[in-house]
C-alpha cells in the first residue's frame, strides 16, 4: 500500500513535467559550412524585390542549371542607394546596374560582359494624372515632381535633363521628391502627392499590367531621347571562364524556347554581348547633365 501511494505521488508530479525538459538553445559559429561557391547576382531595383525575383528568378535558375559546380544567387535591393552601396562595396559577383551605375561601377572593379537589348526602350517618361490639367512643362512650376532615385538614369537623370532643356529649371522651378523606387514614383503621381513622376517604359508597362484601373488615371505626358540599355557586369575577381559563360548564355537566350520565355517576363527581346566601350555615350550624357543640370557625385 505504501508503494502504491508513493507511485501515485510520483505519477502525479511527473505528469506535470515535460519529457525533454531543458533543451539547449541553438548554437552558432562564424565558420560557414562547406558548400559550393555562391555567385551573387545583384539587379538594380527595377521592381520591388518580390516582383524582381518573380521576373529574374527563372534566369538565375537557368544559369544554375547551365553552369556546373557553381551556384548563382539572385539578390535584390530595397532601393537604389542600397543597391549602389552593395555594388560599390563589391558585394555582387555579377550585377545588372543601370547605365549610370555601370559607369560608376567600372571604377570599383566591374567590367561589362553583356547588356540588355532594346536600346530604343531605354528612355525616360514623365507621367501626370489625366485630370491634373497639366499640359505644358511650365504647368509643373512650383509643383512636386517624383523620381525614383537621384542616380536612376532613364527614370531620373534623363527626364530631369529633358525638363531642364525644355524650359524648366529643375533645381529651382520644381520640388524634386526622390521616392526610392519606380513603382513609388508612379504611385506618388497617382495619389496626387506629386504633379508628375519620372520613370521609364519597363516599370510603366508592368504597372499597367498589374494595376490597369490605376494606370488609366495616368498618362505619359513627355518622353526623352533614348540611350543605351542596362548592362551586365562581372567583378574583376570572377574567373573569366564563368564570366564568359554567363555572357554567352545571356547572348543566346533569345534562341531557345526557355530563354524566350525568360525574356518575355523581363519584357526584353534579347541580351547581347558588350564591353565597357559601349557605355561611353553614357559618360557623355552624364558630363552634359552635370554641366547643364546639376553636378553628379
Amino acid at each position, binding site marked *: *500500500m505504501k508503494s*502504491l*501511494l508513493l507511485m*501515485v*505521488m510520483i*505519477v*502525479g*508530479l511527473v*505528469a*506535470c*513535467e*515535460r*519529457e*525533454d*525538459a*531543458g*533543451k*539547449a*538553445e*541553438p*548554437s*552558432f*559559429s*562564424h*565558420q*560557414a*559550412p562547406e*558548400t559550393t561557391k555562391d555567385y*551573387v547576382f545583384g539587379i538594380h531595383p527595377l521592381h*520591388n*524585390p*518580390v516582383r*524582381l*525575383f*518573380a521576373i529574374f*528568378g527563372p534566369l538565375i535558375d537557368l544559369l544554375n542549371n547551365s553552369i556546373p559546380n557553381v551556384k548563382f544567387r*539572385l*539578390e*535584390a*535591393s*530595397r532601393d537604389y542607394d*542600397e543597391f549602389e552601396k*552593395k555594388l560599390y562595396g563589391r558585394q555582387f559577383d555579377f550585377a545588372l546596374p543601370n547605365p549610370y551605375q555601370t559607369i560608376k561601377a567600372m571604377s570599383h572593379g566591374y567590367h561589362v560582359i553583356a547588356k540588355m537589348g532594346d536600346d530604343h526602350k531605354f528612355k525616360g517618361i514623365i507621367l501626370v494624372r489625366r485630370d491634373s490639367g497639366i499640359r505644358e512643362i511650365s504647368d509643373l512650376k512650383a509643383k512636386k515632381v517624383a523620381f525614383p532615385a537621384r542616380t536612376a538614369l532613364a527614370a531620373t537623370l534623363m527626364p530631369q535633363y529633358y525638363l531642364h532643356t525644355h524650359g524648366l529649371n529643375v533645381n529651382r522651378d520644381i520640388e524634386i521628391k526622390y521616392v526610392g523606387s519606380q513603382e513609388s514614383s508612379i504611385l506618388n503621381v497617382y495619389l496626387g502627392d506629386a504633379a508628375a513622376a519620372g520613370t521609364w517604359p519597363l516599370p510603366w508597362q508592368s504597372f499597367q499590367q498589374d494595376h490597369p484601373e490605376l494606370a488609366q488615371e495616368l498618362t505619359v505626358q513627355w518622353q526623352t531621347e533614348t540611350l543605351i540599355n542596362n548592362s551586365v557586369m562581372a567583378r574583376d575577381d570572377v574567373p573569366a571562364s564563368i564570366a564568359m559563360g554567363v555572357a554567352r548564355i545571356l547572348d543566346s537566350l533569345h534562341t531557345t524556347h526557355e530563354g524566350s520565355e525568360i525574356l518575355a517576363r523581363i519584357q526584353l527581346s534579347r541580351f547581347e554581348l558588350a564591353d565597357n566601350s559601349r557605355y561611353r555615350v553614357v559618360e557623355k550624357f552624364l558630363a552634359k547633365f552635370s554641366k547643364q543640370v546639376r553636378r553628379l557625385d
Partner: protein
Amino acid sequence: MATRPFKRQIILTYVVGFFLLISLFVTYLVWAERNYLFNNSNLHASALAQSMAVSSLSWVLANDVAGLEEIVQALKPYPELHYAMVLSEKGRVLAHTDQTKRGQYLTDKDSKTLINSTPQNRILADNRSMIDVAVPILLKNRHVGWARVGLGREQIAEKLNTMVWGSMIFVGAALCFSLLEAFAIGKRLSRRISALAEVTAMIQSGERDVRADVQGTDEITRLAHAFNDMLDTLATSENRFRALFEQAAVGVAQVNANTGRFVRVNQRFCDICGYGLAEMMNKTLHDITHPDDIQASHEHMHVLMEGKAREYSMEKRFSRKDGTIVWVHLTVSAMWSFGETPTHHIAVVQDITPRVQAQEELLRLNLDLEQLVQKESLKNREKDLLLIQQSRLAAMGEMVHNIAHQWRQPLNALSIIIANIKDDYDYGELTAESLQESVNKSRRLLRRMSTTVDEFRDFFRPDKESCDFALDHAVEEAIFIIGDTLVNNGIQLEKKLEAGLVGHGYPNQLAQAILNLLVNSKDAILERKVSSGKIAICLGKSGSQAILTVQDNARGIDEEVLPKIFDPYYTTKEQGSGIGLYMTKMIMERNMKGSIIAVNHGEGTLITLAIPLIVA
C-alpha cells in the same frame, strides 16, 4: 499470519481510494492546464514566426539585413521571447534579436536538420522551458530562408508549479478530511464486528456455550444471529459426532501422523486392544502391531505419507495387553488435503478374529474333504473300469442278439424251404429243378445270414466304406428276406418302387433297416390278429430326396408309446429286444444322412424314410 483489524482496513481502503481519486482528478486538471498553456504558447510562437516569415520576404530577397534587423528587433519586447531570427536557406543568420549572432551559422544538430529538411513549418523544441518554431520563407515555391522564433515557458512553468503546489495542499487537506471521516465510519462499523470477533475467539479457546449478543436490524445483526444459529448447529453436530465416535461398533482412533501416537480413541478400540483409555494415549500403532505385521504396516503407511494414496486397508494382528492376538481389519485414512503437511490419520479397526478362526476351520474342513474326495475318486475309477467291461459285454451281446434277430427270419425261411423239400419228397413232387431252386434259395439265405454277420460287424465299425447304390435294390433285398414269411402268414405286400433313384451310404444297412420295419409291421398284424393283413411299401422322389414309406393296417401304435418307439431297448413285444427301430433310426440318421418318422395313419402305422439323392 498477521491479522489486520477490520477498522484499520476500512480506514485504509477509504483513505487510499479517496486519495487516489482526488490525486487523479488533480493530476488531470494540472495536465489539462499544462496542455492548454503549452498549446497556447505553440500558437503564439507559430504565429510570430509566420508573421516574421511574411514580412521579411522582401528583405531576404534583397539580402537587406538592415531591413530584417528592423523586423526582428521589433519582436524583442514580446514576452518571454528567447530569440527571433531570420536565416538564409543555408542556415546563415541574416538577423537575430541578439545582434552578435548576425552573419554566423547555426551549428547545433536540430538546426542542421532543419536546414536540410523540406521547407515546411517545424517545431524544433517543445519542452518545459521553451517552444522553438521555424517557418519557411517562401516566394511562391521558391524557398529563400527560415523565420525562427524561440519562446520561453518560464511563466508557464511557474504557473504550473503554483498550481501543483496548490493542488498538493488541496490533496493534503482532502486526505485529512477523508481520514477523519474514515475513522468515524470505521469505528461505527467495527464495533459490532469486534463483538463477533470476541465471541469467535472465546469459542476458539473452548467456551462453546458463549453466543454473540448484538442487537439491531442491520446486516451485522443478521450476521450475528446467523452466527449463533451456526454455533448451535455445530454444537448439535459435534455431539452427534462424539456419540458416533464413542458408540461406534468399530474401533476408531485419531493418530498423530508424525509420531504414530494415538490422539483420541473410542472405547471399542480400547476393548479390541485390551488397554484402558489412558494407556492407549501412551501407545502408538506400532506398539500394538504384531511383530510379523510391522513390515507390511510400514509399507502401507509410507504410501499414505507420500501422498500416493488417500487411505489403505489391511488385515493385521494386534497384540493385546493380555498377550493374546486379535485379528483386525484396519483402515487408515489421511486427515490432510493433498499437498499439505501430514497431520493426523483416522484409523478404523474391526475385530475379525471370529471370521479368521472360521476361515481356518473351513480350511481344515476343505483339506479333509479333499482327502475324502480323492478316496472316493479311486473307488469310482474302479467302478468305471467295471462299467467299461460291462459295456463291452453289452455291446457284444447286443450284436449277437441283433444277429440272432436278423437270422431269425432267414432261419425260418430255411426251415420252410427244408419243410417244403420234405413235403415235395413225401408227395413225390421233388424234382431236380425244385430241389435246385430250394438249394439256390437256401444258399442265398445263408449268404444273406453271413452278410448279416459282416454288416453287423461293420455297423459297429465306423470305418466301413460307403458307396452310391440303387435304393430300389436295397428295398428288394429286404423284401427278399421277409417275402416268404409274409406269404406264409397271409399278409399281402404291395410294393411300388421307382427305379433309378441313387443314394449314398450303406446298402445292406438300409436293407436291414427296411427289413426291421417290415418285420415290425408283420409282427403287429399277427399280434393284433388282423384278418387281412396288408403292408404297402412305396419308393418315390420328392425334390432332392427319395421318400420311402411303409404303411400297414395293424391299427397303429398307442399315442403314448409312439414317442418312445425309437428309444433303445424299448419294446412292446413279449420277445422283443427294443433294438430294431433304434438301429433303424441310427442307420438312417448316422449312415444314410437321412431321417425317419412314424405316425398313425389310416388303418395303421405309416413309417416315412427320407434319403438324400445323388445328383447325376
